[in-house]
């Protein structure tokens, strides 16, 4: 039996849209980028490359 896992970048107000870029939230788009560094990238918490994906609009 496997498990279903959801893994998200999230803001304090619970938003998961446009963390890495795009323009769907206007100037707020890409809100995760100032916090993106080697520490988070190398951690097991992150789907590595997700920020790249997000910058494509996910």
């Amino acid at each position, binding site marked *: 039996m496997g*498990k*279903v*896992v959801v893994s998200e970048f999230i803001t304090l107000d619970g938003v998961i849209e446009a963390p890495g870029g795009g323009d769907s939230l206007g100037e707020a788009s890409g809100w995760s980028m100032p916090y993106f560094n080697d520490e988070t990238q190398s951690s097991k918490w992150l789907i590595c490359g997700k920020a790249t994906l997000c910058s494509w609009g996910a």
Partner: protein
Amino acid sequence: MADLRESDALLMGRVTYGLHAAAWPSETGEFADLMNGLPKYVVSSTLENVEWNNSWLINGNIPEEIKKLRQEVPRTILIDGGSDLVNLLLRHDLIDECRLLVHPVVVGQGKRLFQEGSQMERLKLVEAKLFSTGVVALIYQSNKIAE
């Protein structure tokens, strides 16, 4: 990357599938190889076929299909994005674990992870880690899972 390496399948909605399928087939590297190689289950009532390598369409009774899938895999089915998909599964008690990277910012707009009406009861915090940037990583397990 660990998330992906320990996963047996990716689960995504139509929009996320479209973005991935347009990007990954032409990419190389470990992450691209994982993305292209892993089984991908795409939840959509409008797509008629999926062409990305090892992609499978799920429509009809989505909660039942996810239940079956969960019984078939040994480890993890990772949901990639998709507030609507996450909340559909939440309403059927089909989310086992939430891994959140909480960012110290309030954006005041946009799609939220938990929609009106979605509930998760008796969550158990199994891991918490503070990063130097102020980001907090949290892993919660659900104690109420559909059989």
